[in-house]
């Protein structure tokens, strides 16, 4: 009983039976639980619905059906009101595959803008937080640069700072290193590793097996719009139960070896 209660208190996000079709079924009943401090890696082949899952729970796409319990409140994923969506987004961060930094704003302005507009902070407060966040991702030297003057890895670190700025309950990462040149992947992953150590709750759609194995504590393996297997990271990697998971992990391992 007591254990149950502690567990309940820790839960930050629960998704129940989310469904979404475009022409075909992209999400076919996915459920997921995330506790505070979890780093959940979502793995799976292209087209398995990983990205759509993230986009649906931040309302960049509207799910056909499904519920979400976030920060103690229940939301209907298909019919959330504008107000509810705004409320959720103020407590979450999102990091895109292709960074999506505001092109007409400097690195610092990128981090500040959400704070001054959506969160109602003064310019001074926002600037103070903005600089702190850029220090956290090691970008304080480039705070007055425009995105076009930064490398992909630097842009992605600024994007992480921007997601961190309002002190969100959870940050979603949508393939954060997939658009990067190989030599730039490390700097982004090390920032994410640092966040994990600091206890930030994260859901990371990724193809980086090392990150999933060593940084995340939970792994979700998706294929064809369903979760094939999920569990603690070391269990899934050491001892996968499903045939498809084994095959996927073997292929990924070969791919990584081939690259190295």
């Amino acid at each position, binding site marked *: 009983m007591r254990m149950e209660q502690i567990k309940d208190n820790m839960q930050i996000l629960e998704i129940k039976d989310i469904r979404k079709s475009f022409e075909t079924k992209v999400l076919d009943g996915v459920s997921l639980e995330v506790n505070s401090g979890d780093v959940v890696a979502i793995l799976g082949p292209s087209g398995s619905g990983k990205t759509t899952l993230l986009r649906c729970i931040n309302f960049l796409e509207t799910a056909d059906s499904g519920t979400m319990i976030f920060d103690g409140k229940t939301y209907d994923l298909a019919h959330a009101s504008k107000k509810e969506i705004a409320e959720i*987004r103020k407590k979450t961060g999102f990091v895109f595959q292709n960074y999506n930094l505001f092109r007409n704003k400097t690195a610092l302005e990128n981090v500040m803008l959400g704070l001054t507009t959506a969160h109602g902070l003064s310019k001074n407060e926002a600037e103070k937080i903005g600089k702190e966040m850029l220090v956290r991702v090691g970008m304080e030297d480039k705070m007055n640069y*425009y995105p*076009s003057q930064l490398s992909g890895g630097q842009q992605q670190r600024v994007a992480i700072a921007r997601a961190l700025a309002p002190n969100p309950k959870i940050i979603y990462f949508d393939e954060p290193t997939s658009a990067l040149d190989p030599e730039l992947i490390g700097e982004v992953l090390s920032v994410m590793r640092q966040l994990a150590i600091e206890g930030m709750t994260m859901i990371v759609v990724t193809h980086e097996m090392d990150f999933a194995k060593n940084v995340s504590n939970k792994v979700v393996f998706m294929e064809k719009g369903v979760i094939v297997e999920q569990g603690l990271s070391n269990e899934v990697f050491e001892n996968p139960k499903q045939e498809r998971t084994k095959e996927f992990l073997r292929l990924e391992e070969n791919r990584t070896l081939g690259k190295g």
Partner: protein
Amino acid sequence: MGSELWELFVDSFWKILLPGLKMTIPLTVLAFSFAMIIAVIVAMINYANVPFLKPITRFYIWIIRGTPLIVQLMIGYFGLNNIGIKIDAFPAAVLVFSLNEGAYCAETMRAALEAVPHGQLEAGYCVGMNYLQIMWHIVLPQAFRTAFPPLSNSLIGMVKDTSLAANITVTEMFFAAQRIAGRTYKFMLLYLEVALIYLIFSTILTWIQGYGEKKLNAYGANKG
């Protein structure tokens, strides 16, 4: 050039330039300012697919683009006065040029808005901003950067088009040149002279455009 012609040239230069400063420039500045307001509003209605308003804006653009400017001017001044709506020539010209230029610039702005990648909006939503905040801080500034060269083009085009206002008795530069030519019969001289003055106006605007583009390039907004 005979000294008589030279004297006429010098003498008429100020007589043409003065209405240029007093009529052509105010007409252009006023009409283009109104046109920009119309253009941004119409472009945003189209960009955001606002129901009811969008068909109205498409109708407006259809009418303006499908009829000659000179005819619009005639309707706006002689036509309106004819049906009892008393309007002076200058405000009529401002009205017609604003509506005409507004339709064309709206299409320029719409294209520029649509050129802003969708990811910019999504990023705005994800940091918690609402639609209008995103438009104001992110999309419109980027669209203006893209639209700046073609809008400058439109402005330069409009300076020259204001010569058509002579047809509705606005005493702008071309009107003044025509009057002097009619009196002195030195058509070639006067029309070349007024052409030269339009050329000077356009050249100055081209310089300003170049300067403005350099300023905006500091953003490097379209490189990344």
